[in-house]
Each structure stands twice: as C-alpha cells, then as structure tokens.
C-alpha cells in the first residue's frame, strides 16, 4: 500500500520538486503582475495633463532651465526607454520627491504604512474572530434564524458605504454616547510620549509600559477598526457559510453522524478542518482589500496612514506621492493575493499530489 503510493508519487514527479516548480511559477506571475502595475503607474504619470517639467522647475523658470531639466529627466528619450529608467529608479528605491513634504516618497510611505497596517490587522482580527464562528453557525443551521441573521448582516455590509458608516459611527459613539475617542490615533496630550520604534502605537506603548497611551490608542482605534472589521466580517462570514454548506452535504458527515458523533461535533471536528484551507485564502483576500479599503476610512477618521497620505497628496497635485502610494498599496495587495494562492496550493493535499 505504502509502496504503491510511493510509486505513484515518483511517476508524477517528486512532491518536493512540484513545490519548487509551483514556487517558480508563483515568482513568475508575481514579477509579471508587478511589471503590469508599474506600467500602469508609469502610464498614469506620463499621460497626466500636468507638465512634469513645470512640476519640478515651477512656472517662472527660464527657457534654458526648462530645456535642461527636460533633458535631465530623460523626456526626450523614447517612451519604452523612459519606462526602463523608471523601473531602474523604482528598484533602487527611488520613488521621487514628494512636493508636499519635500522628502523622498519612499520614506514618507515607510512612515505612514504602520498606521494602516495596525488598523487593517485589528480589523481583520475582528472579522475572523466573529465572522468565522458566525459563518459556521449559519451554514450548519441553513435556513433557520441564525442563518438569516448572518445573511442580512452580510448583505448590509456589502451595501453600505464605508465612509458613511464611519461618519454615523462617529456621530453616535463619539458625539452622542462618548464611548470612544474621536479622529486621529492619539489625543494631543499623549502625543510624543512614546518613541516610535515600530510605528505601531499599540506595540510601542506596550514596549515602554505606557498604559495610559495604550488605553488612549485603543479608544481611538476601536471605532475605525470595528467599522472596517464589520466589512471584513461580512465577507468572511458569507464565504465561511457557503464552504460549510458544501462540506455538510458530503457523505462523510453523514457517516460521522451515523457513528454517533453529535451534530456540532461533526460540524467542528469533521467539516470545519476541511474548510480551513479555503478560509486562509478568504482571510488573506479580505486582509488585502482592507489595506485598500482603509483609504476612505482613514480619510473619515483622520488616521495618518497610507490612505490619508494618498488622498492628501491628491489634492496637492503631488503626483509622485500619489503614484508611490498606489504602487505601495498595489504591491502589498498583489503580494498578499498571490501568497494566498500559493498557500492554498501548498496546503491543499488534493492539489499537492497532482
């Protein structure tokens, strides 16, 4: 029996080799997608109505200065060559200067990213902790009231504008009830107490044992994270529900029940482990889309993350910063997306032996 599977494994190529090959394919598609993303940001940067030279030298530059900058920026070269120059700059970490902060865009991005990361991570945690059990329950009790409740909650999540929910949340929980703190990451009184090590205030304040700062950060974080978490929950619960329904219709569940497993025992110990692989993908996707969805939420809550940086730059016609931010969000988004794809293929035993 064991020998038989071994023979089959050899015939199909060694599993370890298959993983390597899959990883190479993963890297290939990652590279290609990144190239596509940079091509798009290059195209946007190249075809905006704003004159890129004027953006650098200003309106009052002399003709000579203008021409010199025009040549220095390589704008006389063919477009494909310009794209290659652009790529080489990106690879060496040169995203250009931000007009708004007059600093390199990359160091701006590094400064703003932790806030977005903190928000999206806590939101995903909320989505997973509530969404998965809710989805499993709804799937197990298909057609009964918990199922309808989860479906309605999910449907509302799919239909609500996140910026509006944020404003209503601020009005109710901050304005009327006073349960949470308002916009921003910290009250002004707590600013600059802890030194920024990771940029994630919850972590930084814990390292220094500043409990007052930690509590204040939580009070600021809970509303935006809760609202983003709701959208994550809606998606995760909906997907978990449909995975669960599919598993519970399989014969092995009936077999487990016949052998005396309780209903919930069959749900959690037999069906649930089988949906875990698919769940990893769903959670990863929702995490990636939260990094993106944070753009509007951050605007509403004045949360100093990537989204706020992008929108602020937008209004100051700071195209380097906008494209740098787009590239950063896009890179994280693509990375997480493809990583989930890879994890799925590695952990799903059916795909592994093929």
């Amino acid at each position: 029996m064991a020998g038989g599977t071994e023979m089959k494994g050899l015939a199909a190529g060694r599993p370890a080799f298959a993983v390597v090959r899959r990883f190479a394919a993963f890297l290939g598609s990652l590279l290609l997608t990144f190239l596509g993303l940079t091509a798009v940001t290059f195209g946007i940067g190249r075809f905006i109505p704003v004159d890129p030279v004027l953006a650098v030298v200003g309106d009052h530059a002399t003709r000579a200065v203008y021409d010199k900058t025009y040549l220095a920026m390589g704008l006389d070269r063919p477009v494909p060559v310009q794209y290659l120059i652009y790529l080489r700059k990106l690879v060496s970490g040169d995203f250009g200067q931000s007009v708004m902060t007059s600093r390199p865009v990359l160091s701006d991005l590094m400064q703003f990213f932790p806030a977005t990361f903190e928000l999206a991570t806590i939101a995903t945690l909320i989505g997973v902790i509530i969404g998965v059990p809710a989805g499993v329950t709804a799937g197990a009790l298909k057609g009964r009231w918990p199922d309808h409740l989860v479906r309605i909650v999910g449907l509302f999540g799919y239909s609500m504008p996140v910026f509006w929910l944020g404003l209503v949340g601020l009005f109710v929980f901050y304005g009327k009830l006073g349960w949470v703190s308002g916009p921003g990451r910290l009250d002004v009184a707590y600013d600059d107490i802890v030194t920024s090590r990771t940029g994630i205030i919850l972590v930084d304040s814990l390292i220094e044992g500043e409990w007052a700062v930690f509590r204040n950060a939580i009070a600021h974080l809970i509303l935006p994270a809760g609202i983003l978490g709701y959208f994550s929950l809606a998606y995760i619960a909906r997907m978990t529900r449909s995975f669960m329904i599919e598993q519970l219709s399989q014969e092995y569940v009936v077999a487990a029940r016949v052998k005396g497993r309780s209903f919930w025992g069959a749900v959690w110990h037999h069906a649930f482990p089988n949906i875990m692989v698919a769940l990893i993908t769903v959670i990863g996707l929702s995490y990636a889309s939260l990094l993106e969805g944070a753009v509007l939420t951050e605007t509403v809550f004045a949360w100093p993350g990537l989204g706020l940086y992008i929108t602020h730059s937008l209004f100051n016609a700071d195209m380097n910063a906008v494209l740098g931010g787009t590239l950063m969000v896009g890179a994280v988004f693509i990375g997480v997306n493809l990583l989930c794809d890879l994890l799925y293929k590695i952990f799903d035993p059916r795909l592994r032996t093929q």
Partner: protein
Amino acid sequence: MTGSLRQWLASDQPASRRQAVLGNLARGAKAIITNPAALTGLLIVIALLIVALFAPLIAGRISPIAQDLAARLAPPSSAHWFGTDELGRDIYARTVHGARVTLTIVMLVAVFVAPIGLAVGTAAGYLGGWVDALLMRITDIFLAFPRLVLALAFAAALGPGIENAVIAISLTAWPPYARIARAETVTIARSDFIAAVVLQGAASARILFRHIVPLCLSSVIVRLTLDMAGIILTAAGLGFLGLGAQPPTAEWGAMVSSGRDVILDQWWVATIPGLAIFIVSLGFNLLGDGLRDVLDPKNA
C-alpha cells in the same frame, strides 16, 4: 384569454422561438416576483429609475442648487423635509436629483464594462492558443490590482468629473467579466451546435457574435447586477474624495463629504445622502441575488 396566454407561456413544447423566449422571461419574472428579497430589490431599482426620470417633479420643483444662506444647516422641517446643507440648499431636492447622477454613472460603467469583458473573454476562450494566454495574463494582472486605489490614481490623473470617474471605474472593473465570458465560451465552443456552424462555413466573427456572445449574456448580466452595488459604492467613494461630480452638481458621495465637518451637530447633512447610497446598493444586491438564482442556477 388570460388562461390560454398563461398556458401558451408555460408550454414546455414551444412552437416558435418567440414563444420559447417569452416563456423563459415569464418563468424568470415569476421566480423574481415570488422571492420577497428579489422583489424588494426590484422595487428599489424601479423606484430609483422613477425618481431619476421624474426628479424635478418629485423634488417639488425645488432647485437642487438654489442657495439660501439665511436658512443654512436648518434641521428637517415641513419646509425642508431633510433639512438644508451648509449653503442652505434643500437636501431633499438634492438627494432626489442625486439619483440621476448615480444612475448615469452606473449605466455608463455597464455600457463600457460588459462589451470590453465580453470581447476579451469570448475572443480568448474561442481563439485559444497564444491569444488566450496573452489576454488572460493581462486580465489577471488587472484583476490583481487594488480597484479603489487604482481608480483613485486614474481619476487623479484624468482630472475630477463624472466622465473621468466612469472611465476610472470601468478601467478597473472589466476583468471579472472577461473571466466569466471566457469560462462560458470554453464550454460552449466544444458543443456540437458550434461544430455544426463551423461545418457550414461560418466565420469566427459570426460564430462569436451570433452564437457565443448571446449565450454568455445571462452570466454577464447577473454579474453586472451584483456589481452595480460595488460600482455605486466606488463612485460614491470617489465623489466623497472630491473626484466625482463637481459642485454644484448634487452627487450623494460629495453630499456626504460636505456634511463631514458638521456631523456632530447637523447629522442630517451627511446621513441622508448616505442612506440613499445604502438603499440603492442594497436594492441592486437583492435583485442580483435573485437574478442569479433564476438565470444562473448552477452558481447559486
């Protein structure tokens, strides 16, 4: 008379193409109407259409852009049902007129996205080979992009405005349609009736447009209806950031944005247009779920 019409529609042996098509429509309509959720969605969408069509009438001939600075930020009252905004404009009239903007955006995006997706998907699926590989690789690349942020960058580059918002959303929204159309095409292309048409000497273009595209339409329509909510939300998000319709046009996202600074004291300014966005996208979601059950039972 009605009895015989009903029989004629419900016949499982249609004598003509017309009878078959009408019978299918009737069965679909019945399935939608007997499903309370889908019916609610349908009614909301119809209400949106009526409000958009007769906006000036429904707004009671109150101008959505007339300013009355003496009555700015007035709470809801009998004179101003939903109150007034920071320039004293009537929020009820603006919300009603905003339906027009939303409907325009949604219809324009649909008109752009469905043909692009269908063209790319059916061509890839039917022609196969390197065309398929190339087109699907491009589709995958676009599919992996973050939609809102990319639409944001596009809108920023093109400049603010409804037309540019539509282009920005369309550029990021077509890939799923190409995927769906390709999947359908691959199965259809293998069927005997396509082989028969090929033997009769039909050109590829004719096969694509006359035989494959019509069969892909139902999946595309379902996806489009389900996507409408997302499109409305993205458009509202762009409007909220100031990249959609420009003032003084009444657009729901921009209206929410204008109420941002006064949310703690004058809640109605931001809340009511947001509610309109919510109800309309809920309607499209409900209708889309219902349509999926009717048109596309294998994915339900």
